[in-house]
């Protein structure tokens, strides 16, 4: 590919659409970390399950793909509640390694259940907007990607309002600051944990639906987005929402530029090299605080 202004433009727009999905996933991971001090490495598997659910709903019930995402959001939020109650609640506050082990077990469970139910073939959610392109300054981009960017922005705004303006959001912020004080103030911390996890899962579900519309997916698709989302929030600093967005854009641009200028296969390696360098200089991320 020639390196001209339109190709760079196109690369950046592509990166933006992909980056937005990662930001959504990263925000979900981040809110769970911020409130519960828990890292769920199986977060991407919720994305994968949601992509499959949206596919099933839109294919078998004939629902519009974007409406199917809303339905799968509710289902995945309930899966999230189940996961939190049955597994993570029991290891919270023990050795940090235990959380990694539990998530690893969950990855095995989710991926193989998906494989049993939906098989190993790649699927893609049929979109009502498929085949439609938007043209400007000599480059074209599918409508689905543009819609994805707007859906992500809308989801992030709704999420921000929930955190800043509602009582539940206030309780979540209080719990994330000092858990015990929040408990003394009459906040049901366990309920807040449950809501937080469901919220994170719902964000992952939206990301999964959009992912399934833009890309084809199979049962293994969850692993890499989790790692990337995690790399993003580490770049930005765990628990910092602002950091997640900056980290997401930084990651997306690095990966896309590496793909454009060096070679396609270098994309993730360069992004991880960047992550390692950042962590060597700042062990708690760019915006991270030294606390945790």
């Amino acid at each position, binding site marked *: 590919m020639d390196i001209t202004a339109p190709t760079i433009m196109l690369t950046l727009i592509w990166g933006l659409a992909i980056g937005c999905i990662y930001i959504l996933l990263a925000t979900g991971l981040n809110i769970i970390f911020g409130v519960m001090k828990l890292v769920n490495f199986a977060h991407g598997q919720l994305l994968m399950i949601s992509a499959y659910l949206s596919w099933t709903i839109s294919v078998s019930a004939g629902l519009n793909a974007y409406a199917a995402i809303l339905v799968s959001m509710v289902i995945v939020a309930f899966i999230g509640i189940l996961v939190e109650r049955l597994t993570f609640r029991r290891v919270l506050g023990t050795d940090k390694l235990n959380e990694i082990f539990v998530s690893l077990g969950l990855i095995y469970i989710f991926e193989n259940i998906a494989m049993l139910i939906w098989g*190993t073939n790649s699927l893609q959610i049929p979109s009502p907007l498929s085949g439609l392109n938007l043209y400007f300054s000599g480059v074209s981009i599918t409508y689905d990607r543009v819609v994805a960017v707007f859906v992500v922005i809308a989801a992030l705004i709704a999420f921000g309002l929930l955190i800043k303006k509602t009582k539940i959001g206030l309780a979540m912020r209080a719990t994330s600051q000092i858990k015990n004080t929040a408990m003394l103030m009459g906040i049901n911390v366990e309920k807040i944990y449950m809501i937080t996890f469901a919220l994170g899962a719902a964000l992952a579900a939206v990301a999964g639906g959009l992912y399934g519309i833009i890309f084809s997916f199979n049962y293994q698709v969850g692993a890499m987005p989790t790692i990337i989302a995690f790399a993003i929030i580490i770049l930005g600093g765990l628990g910092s929402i602002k950091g997640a967005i900056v980290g997401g854009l930084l990651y997306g641009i690095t990966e896309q530029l590496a793909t454009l200028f060096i070679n396609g296969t270098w994309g993730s390696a360069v992004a991880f090299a960047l992550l390692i360098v950042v962590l060597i200089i700042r062990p708690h991320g760019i915006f991270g605080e030294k606390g945790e």
Partner: protein
Amino acid sequence: MEIKQKLTSLLHSRIFQIIIFGLAILVILPVIITDNFFLYVLTLICIFSIYAASWNFLANSGQGSLGHAAFLGLGGFSSALIGTSISNGINGLLGTVIMPIGALSVTIQILVLIVGGLISAGIGFLIGLACVRLKAWYLAMVTFGFSVIASTLSSQFDAITNGINGFAPTTLVPRGFPFYILVLSFTVTSIAVMYLIMKSRTGLAFRAIHGNEEEAKMIGINTAKYKLIAFVISTFFAGIAGGLNVYFLRFVDNSIFAPANSFLPLIMSVIGGLGTVIGPIIGSVFWVSIQQILALPSVADYLHSSLGGFFPGLSNVGPPISLIAIGIIIVVIVIFEPKGLVALLQKVYNYIMLKTKSKAEIKPK
């Protein structure tokens, strides 16, 4: 005098006798059961025991790696490449087409494996330098990222590594019983060395760091130094396991760096029992047995005929079902029995001992 006393007490201790007895069985059993499949499974268990033990060793110092496949691959690739070029060189000098099998090739094999381990440890030292300041998931991410980078590098420098299509290293020790004995001796030595380090003052420092890094620092332990030592030793043994694995399978390509290989030692250690010597061994026995039993044609056929109807999208339902079971086992073990199968077996043993003891006490009356 003191040494003699120690030696006699060692010879009389129950654990030592059990270990010697177990080793004797491990050597004699393949001679009696001359079944290729049985030998294959035993060798696999031994190799994975080293690998899992090396991960467990690192976890003992409070560092959980999610990228150990990088070191497995580094050891595997470097020992395979070096061994192949050495034997090609010797063949060129001697003018023989096939490498003669004997003391020379065995020596070369052992040296090549150790060199592979050393190269892995050298890279491990550099990665460890980056990791000493990092904790929990930060460390997990950096090690994971390194395994992704290693995989990319092995594909990019394909001219040197043959990473994309893979290659078969020259056979130095023939497969079967001779190779099994080689693997067994490496396994015993590696695990013994790791055990002795864990029992030494260095091991005490590792456990102190695992317990609480700030407190360890306060009582004067140079935590950075000890974490680095743990990293280097662990990556050395992971490299050895990688070399053995490559020479055993007689093939290596960049799929050795896959995340699944990074998760393997972790799963084995968690299932077997974290922080114990025997845990990773039990874990690898458990894992390899489950995988091999499900791969048996009769079992696979049975599963397919009984469950295949429910899942029309799949030709083989065994692997996903076994992996779901493994996932559930991991979650259940972490929640209910964090010390793994070892603790479970210990409890069963204690229960039986208690029963026989109480019977023995009742009898004289």
